[in-house]
């Protein structure tokens, strides 16, 4: 019902807007038509940068460079040989370039592809960097692109730029392009692949553990974003009809960045609204730079005043509403309707894992020293030890986050030492983390669905056009049903549509486990599942862990400090102290083991007095 209503309203308003655009050339003067065009182009640019930064979390300052590539590719294709001949004054144009020509639409696609190609070249080396360094490196690339354009005069006419580009960017063109980009973006972001992108942003480490090759995903998103940048640049060139290298300075990137931040990082509708607001405001503020006459008094225009006011507004927005207009939410028709009230309701004994003399050293420091252990199928095994004993390090080695310095790790009979976390995950192992690592901005259901991406067969690009590749819809709905099922089993179904970070603590822990289960593991690593729980919650957790083993046929290895939990739930326990494997045995044996007591309560404790 709600979906039908939203769909009707969306279709209706799109039709209304299309009719308006159709009539716009008669209704509006050239100035307003130009603003409308700019809004569409800026929205394309903002969406593409948002895909890179807001959705996938890669701080890129290089968008202007990719715009430049797009603008030049398209302009060079649509300019006529006569125009080119007349324009190249300082140096001759390459003869092969003189006669290259293509229709506008083809030039747009080629512009996008060229930008995407350069984006890929940039991404492969640079995306290994993180955070601010990535921003600086991409800024550097954008500047290099600009300098190359300035200096390859035979190709680009250098600093003189290109003039007289046919004004092919009509309202129809720019808004259709935006429509297509928007449709593809929304389809992709709604599919499970979109969930994967956001998962990489929210928590790359956890995403790896869901079997996702995060580097590949980042390269993809970056390249796609660059395609949008090139497309936007091409439309811009054909709107303004002149381009030169100075148009694509860092300021251009800042403008787009501002749009997405004002609209809300990661929000698609935010980018559209942001580009409406920022573009209109930038244009409308032009009046402060023109002379005005009020009551016969001439106020001269003040050059620069426009950007002064604009930047002040920007600072105020960021200080007082730092998440932007939309935050990470999306626009929905439902905000105009009262919300319906939510009903609140309450195999045989083979070896699964085998470590042999595993050592892990950081520099001179030894984190794990000669750890050997065997875990049998359907066992629940505890790994305990005082602070700094090397338990989490051991987990990180087993799950592929660290390479062991020496020793072998066999999982289901195959050696997995040195595999990446996503490969380990595919082999049938999953884990949770000490400090819960959920994809906090996603819903509970989406979190679990990301775990099933490993098993889906459709390719990322099919998610751009789900209406053609119906596999996307079919597989996603299967994944959704399975995820829902899992949530029901774990008693989380009532939260399915809530944001993961808004859940109560105990439920977040369970959700992290549900997400791990969605990869269909045979072996589950739990890192301090009871941390931060009160006594009743840990009581429930114990039952829950046993149920997990029985219902999902799991073998479980857990790190835990809450000894009640460990002693009650584990069949077998291994004890580490300062990296050394000091004891193993059943809970009763461990409780009486003098070395264990000493490790926990201090030297001398086992001799009686504290006992």
């Amino acid at each position, binding site marked *: 019902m709600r979906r039908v209503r939203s769909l009707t309203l969306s279709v209706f308003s799109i039709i209304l807007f299309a009719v308006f655009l159709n009539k716009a050339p008669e209704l509006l003067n050239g100035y307003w038509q130009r603003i409308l065009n700019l809004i569409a182009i800026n929205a394309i640019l903002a969406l593409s940068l948002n895909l890179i930064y807001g959705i996938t979390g890669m701080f890129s300052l290089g968008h202007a460079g990719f715009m430049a590539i797009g603008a030049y590719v398209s302009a060079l294709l649509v300019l006529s040989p006569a125009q080119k001949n007349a324009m190249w004054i300082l140096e001759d144009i390459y003869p092969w370039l003189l006669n290259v020509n293509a229709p506008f639409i083809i030039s747009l696609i080629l512009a996008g592809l060229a930008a995407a190609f350069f984006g890929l070249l940039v991404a492969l080396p640079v995306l290994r960097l993180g955070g601010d360094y990535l*921003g600086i490196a991409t800024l550097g690339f954008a500047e290099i692109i600009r300098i190359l354009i300035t200096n390859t005069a035979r190709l680009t006419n250098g600093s003189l730029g290109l003039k007289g580009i046919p004004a092919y960017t009509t309202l129809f063109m720019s808004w259709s392009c935006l429509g297509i980009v928007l449709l593809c973006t929304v389809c992709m972001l709604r599919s499970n692949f979109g969930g994967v992108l956001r998962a990489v942003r929210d928590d790359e480490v956890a995403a790896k553990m869901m079997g996702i090759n995060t580097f590949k995903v980042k390269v993809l998103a970056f390249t796609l974003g660059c395609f949008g940048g090139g497309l936007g640049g091409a439309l811009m060139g054909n709107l303004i009809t002149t381009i030169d290298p100075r148009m694509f300075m860092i300021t251009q990137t800042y403008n787009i960045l501002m749009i997405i931040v004002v609209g809300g990082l990661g929000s698609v509708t935010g980018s559209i609204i942001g580009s409406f607001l920022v573009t209109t405001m930038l244009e409308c503020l032009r009046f402060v730079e023109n002379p005005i006459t009020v009551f016969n008094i001439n106020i001269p225009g003040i050059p620069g005043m426009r950007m002064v006011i604009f930047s002040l507004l920007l600072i105020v927005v960021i200080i007082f509403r730092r998440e932007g207009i939309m935050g990470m939410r999306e626009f929905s028709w439902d905000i105009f309707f009262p919300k319906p009230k939510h009903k609140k309701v309450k195999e045989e004994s083979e070896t699964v894992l085998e470590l042999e003399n595993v050592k892990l050293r950081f520099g001179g420091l030894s984190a794990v020293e000669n750890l050997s252990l065997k875990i049998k199928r359907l066992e629940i095994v505890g790994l305990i030890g005082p602070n700094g004993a090397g338990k989490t390090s051991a987990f990180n080695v087993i799950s592929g986050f660290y390479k062991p310095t020496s020793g072998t790790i066999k999982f289901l009979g195959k050696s997995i030492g040195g595999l990446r976390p996503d490969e380990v995950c595919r082999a049938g192992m999953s884990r949770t983390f000490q400090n819960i690592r959920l994809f906090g901005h996603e819903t509970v259901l989406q979190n679990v669905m990301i775990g099933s991406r490993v098993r889906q067969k459709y390719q990322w690009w099919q998610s751009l056009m789900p209406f053609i590749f119906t596999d996307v819809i079919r597989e996603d709905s299967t994944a959704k049903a399975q995820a829902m099922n899992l949530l029901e089993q774990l008693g989380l179904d009532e939260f399915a549509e809530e944001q993961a970070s808004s859940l109560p603590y105990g439920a977040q822990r369970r959700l992290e486990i549900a997400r791990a289960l969605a990869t269909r593991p045979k072996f589950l690593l739990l890192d301090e599942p009871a941390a931060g729980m009160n006594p009743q919650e840990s009581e429930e957790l114990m039952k829950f862990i046993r149920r997990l083993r029985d219902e999902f046929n799991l073998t479980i290895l857990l790190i835990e400090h809450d000894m009640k939990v460990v002693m009650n739930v584990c069949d077998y326990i291994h004890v580490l102290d300062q990296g050394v494997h000091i004891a193993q045995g059943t809970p009763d044996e461990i409780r009486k083991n003098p070395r264990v007591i000493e490790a926990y309560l201090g030297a001398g404790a086992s001799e009686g007095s504290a006992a």
Partner: protein
Amino acid sequence: MELNIFVQHFINALSLGSLYGLVAVGYTMVYGILRLINFAHGDIFMLGAYFVYFATIVYKLPWAVGVVLAIIGTTVCGLLVDRIAYKPLREAPRISALISAIGVSFFIENFAVVVFTGMPRPVVQPPILMQPIEFSNGVRLIPLGILVPVVAFILVGALLWLLYRTKPGLAMRAISFDIETTRMMGVSVNKIIALAFGLGSALAAVAGIMWALRYPRVEPFMGMTPGIKAFIAAVFGGIGSVPGAMIGGLLLGFVEIMSVAFFPTLSGYKDAFAFLLLILILLFRPTGLLGEKLEDKI
């Protein structure tokens, strides 16, 4: 290459590099503490140049007085920027502060257009700085070319002294590693951050003044390119490290001047070299020459 020409290039590279270095130091101090790329720093540099222009050329004050006033004025502006645009965002996600920095940068540039107009204004150099000195082996130098690196080295030396020999300096170094522990020791963190902004702005002012003398003119957007390049210099040297920033600045100055000196045909690409070098350094030594390696924690 003739000795005379080479010495000219060398001195040019040294002065350009030390100017980059002076600005880079301000970036590196703020980034080291707040992990914020202070995009407005290049514009603070521009303000220094304008202040000295107004003091000495418009209001005809003696240079010594004008320079002091310009440094004070610029420092106050730097402190205001921190207080108004960054301090409210200390607990916010880093992108917020970054966008605020971009906003401040736009604001200062365009405010300068409004107040000073967008026209470049010529700076009249004091003749004493321009009188060439001729050496017996035919090498000719102007005093300004020597003054710039000397002043820069003295100032960075003084800053290092402050950082390594005084208590506020100790606190500043400590904050860049671990704000909480430093707070535990009784250090008032906000005061130290303000000190970093103040010192960075003062050094940027000096750089701006010397830049205005060297390329004798001022204009509202003069801080943009040197600002970005100085930031790159800071990344070269290992962001967070003051000596690194100076070394990075010098390296950049030498790359720019010498590449053009030896390969005049490539002069159009001189900025590209800087960026290419930046990317190579980032790829092979992501934390710069003197930077510390930071590890991700799982």
